[in-house]
């Protein structure tokens, strides 16, 4: 009988009763055929592979990460809480040592959900990876974590959440933002002034096939992971780079996905996008499960797989080659912070960093304006403050006291909230995330 070389826990939550709309690509049917394929292959009978129920994330699990306006219940349904809970269960299996690795195949996805949430962007409401990561840190201490986002869309939400965090390495491989939603994720986006080089974007041209992806992983991602020495590697496993995906333009295959997973060797994988629900997901997910378990995946093949037909052209190869030459430098020798309000990088004035953002929630049709401020501190991560208003919520405030806050910053955080309450300033809702003392407070409800 087959036995996994690396033990693997699989959390399956297909959310068979939840959809954005009946014909939306992110709908009930999405994981149906994956479930069929995994069951038919008998994958849960393989020694070392086990299936688990998801946990359910609590409001506090979400409030540890996000500023949700007006509150968590308003932006996240039960399905979102279970999806995040599925990721948390995957983490728990690995952290407790019950399984060496885990794969949370849950939906809805989360990597477009940013620090502030007013509604749904790119089918995402809450960032399930971030909720998972912060639950790990809350329970197991402040781990160094690397997230490799292999979804075809730029993981702009995850990037936003970890923009100022030097202990979280975020690498996103995606179809070039000039050709696909959300239109971001360029090499010059390297993280905030206190975390330069901790964000790395690898925009790949349309029609990139296995060759290009694997080259980028080998030449850019792996050396950086080796240097960063994370405690955990997490794969935001979006599967919409597949050559049959209806809403993207890439040429990745199930074999390629499996090989990439073998190279990355993530501790935890969390399903993100992937909308070719019949022709790709069953095979890609099977390939990833086998690769994660250290099993042979060479017989996994899509019905219409013809490597020659989808092979990338020489120009694409040359372009990616050049990217691979220059991108690692952004991590190893990031240029000093330049700043500039016009290019969205923000400016430093005294010991305060300020950045303005306009965010559009395409799924819910919400426009948001926000200004974020980071109080730069030599002793700790610094207090983070965000003022936000949107077409669905009036001006509101979020303040975060970091986990390693110094006494000064801890007091500053409380003072900011207090002043906002006393003097007004017109904030309809105020939220405080105090990671230092583990308090998550809301005012104005």
């Amino acid at each position, binding site marked *: 009988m087959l036995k996994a070389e690396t033990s693997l826990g699989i959390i399956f939550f297909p959310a068979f009763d939840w959809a954005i709309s009946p014909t939306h690509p992110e709908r009930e049917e999405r994981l149906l055929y994956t479930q*069929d394929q995994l069951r038919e292959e008998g994958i849960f009978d393989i020694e070392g592979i086990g299936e688990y129920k998801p946990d359910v994330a609590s409001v506090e699990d979400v409030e540890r990460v996000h500023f949700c306006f007006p509150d968590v219940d308003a932006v996240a349904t039960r399905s979102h809480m279970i999806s995040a809970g599925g990721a948390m269960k995957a983490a728990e299996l690995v952290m407790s040592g019950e399984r060496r690795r885990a794969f949370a195949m849950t939906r809805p996805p989360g990597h477009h959900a940013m620090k502030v949430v007013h509604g749904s962007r790119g089918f995402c409401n809450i960032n399930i990876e971030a909720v998972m990561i912060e639950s790990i840190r809350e329970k197991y201490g402040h781990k160094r974590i690397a997230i490799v986002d292999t979804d075809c869309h730029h993981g702009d939400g995850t990037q936003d959440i970890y923009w100022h965090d030097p202990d979280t390495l975020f690498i996103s491989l995606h179809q070039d933002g000039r050709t696909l939603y959300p239109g971001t994720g360029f090499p010059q986006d390297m993280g905030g002034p206190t975390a330069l080089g901790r964000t790395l974007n690898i925009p790949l041209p349309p029609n990139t096939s296995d060759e290009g992806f694997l080259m980028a992983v080998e030449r850019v991602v792996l050396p950086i992971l080796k240097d960063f020495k994370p405690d955990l590697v997490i794969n935001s496993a979006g599967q919409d780079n597949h050559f049959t995906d*209806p809403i993207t333009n890439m040429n990745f295959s199930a074999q390629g996905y499996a090989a990439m997973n073998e190279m990355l060797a993530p501790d935890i994988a969390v399903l993100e996008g992937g909308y070719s629900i019949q022709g790709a997901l069953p095979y890609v997910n*099977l390939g990833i499960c086998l690769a994660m378990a250290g099993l042979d995946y060479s017989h996994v093949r899509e019905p219409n797989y013809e490597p020659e037909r989808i092979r990338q052209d020489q120009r694409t190869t040359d372009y990616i080659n050049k990217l691979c030459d220059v991108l690692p430098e952004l991590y190893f020798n990031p240029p000093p912070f330049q700043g500039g309000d016009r290019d969205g990088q923000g400016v430093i004035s005294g010991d305060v960093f300020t950045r303005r953002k306009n965010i559009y929630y395409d799924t819910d049709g919400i426009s948001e304006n926000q200004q974020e401020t980071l109080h730069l501190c030599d002793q700790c991560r610094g207090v983070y403050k965000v003022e936000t208003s949107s077409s669905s919520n009036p001006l509101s405030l979020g303040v975060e006291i970091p986990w390693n806050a110094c006494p000064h910053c801890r007091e500053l955080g409380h003072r900011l909230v207090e002043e906002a309450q006393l003097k007004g300033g017109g904030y309809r809702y105020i939220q405080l995330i105090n990671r230092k003392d583990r308090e998550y407070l809301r005012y104005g409800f």
Partner: protein
Amino acid sequence: MLLGIDVGGTHTDAVAVKVDQDGARVIASCKVPTRHHDLMWSIDTALDAILEQVDRNQVSQLNLSTTLSTNAIVEGKIEDVGVLVSAGPGIDPHNFMPCRDFHVIDGSVDHRGNEIRALSREQLDQALASCRKNGVRVFAVVGKFSTRNPRHENAMRRAACACDDDARCEAADFVTSGHQLGGALNFPRRIATAYFNCAVWRLFNEFADAGEASLREKGLGDVTVNILKADGGTMPLSQSRTLPVQSIFSGPAASVMGIVALTDIFHDSVILDIGGTTTDIAVFADGAPLIERDGIHIGSHPTSVNALKVRSIGLGGDSAVSIIGDEVAVGPNRLGPPVSLGGERLTLTDCLNFQGACEVGDTAASKQAVERFAEAHTMPADALADRAVEYAARKIHDETRALVDEINSKPVYTIHELLEGKRVVPRKLYLMGGPAQALRDPVFHQFKLSTEVPPNYGVANAVGAALTRTTWELELFADTQRHVLFIPSLSYRENVPSGYDLDAAREDAVNQLVMQLDSLGVRLNAEDAKITHASSFNMIDGYERAGRNIRVKCQVRPGVSATLAKEA
């Protein structure tokens, strides 16, 4: 009058049960030794003993639980099988090779039942030629996703038989098609199940022939004969001839159904069948026994054979008492019978005898043995006995808790997936088996749950066998984009219109189940057929709905036809 026979490891038990409006009454029972090399002798002898006590003209039904198939597999007395599979992409099927004559034929069917690649006729012919050269006469044909579309299995079956219908043929004696074993998805299990079904087919049918001849001789030729299955149900003998693998591991099912017949179980409960060597633990949710979600393992092969979820632990009345460090331990080994029955090693039963909890055999011998053992380990005799009994009860408690935790933490679904997601919280214990009465108080002390030892628990297995009902299940799969409805276990295929929906599918599933059982001579009330799973998914092409993907599972849940009448 209903007869029940349970062929067990040491004894073959038989009962005759009379059922009237007050319930069932045991009117005759007997125990004879089991002869493993001649099971027919054991059955015949038990049957004769019962028929001496009752009017044979009143017998309407005989239910039989036999270890025949299990033994054949365990002892390797099985026939060579030709296994032909159509796998397509995925895990390399050679990982699931059960025997020498295993052939993978190119071709593939996808998860929706679309044929992606036709079956290679050339490879099929070569494979069959190779099997025939090896003298193979029985074949298992299995396709990946054959429960969505059996096209490749049908082609392989026709090739193996060298003819177009299911009639007997010269080229093969018997063919098992994977899809007829059930509608569940699991290709490796389907391969193993089809293989074992073929491997025991001839032996089982020879046994069935002998059994029918013997019944005719006894003037019982018209009696309905059913064979027990591991899922706590029966199947008609005629059915068992083509599905002999379903008769495997039916022993624990007879015990569990015995408890069902002897008591009224409504709550989440734990059944403890405490025997000489082992204790079998079974769990009930809302009064219904839990089953293994996917099926049991035969040897190291997982199969799709449904079975009640039963955990066996090495602890029973004959378990030896030992001292490990400071702890008094019991089991897991049996090193001969209790001292009170002439054994040499101190056992749990001896300790219970010492306490006065029971009186098995020579209680004075038990008393001496406990005292000797205690003295050798410099501890008071009563402390030794108490700690041994306490250890046994605690062990049973811990293992039961672990089983319940496992059930609650893993997606092991209950007999109906209706209960999926429900937590099992036992509220009551039922004890049966030899030491049940004696261990009642210590076990209660551990669990602190209502603990019942039903009367008549000595004949529970055979009573369970006698009263067990026929179970059946089927899965219906419809794809309105492809306009097809398919019930794998019946090989039933029908065209459906675009407007076919979940309600129609539910109705069709129940009707087909009732009709199928009717054709087997089993009368079923439509309300006994329960829908245990029903789902319908919109399939989208572009941004338009292209059809519905409908799945319905329908079953007659295990149960008994009557429970024992309350003693007046």
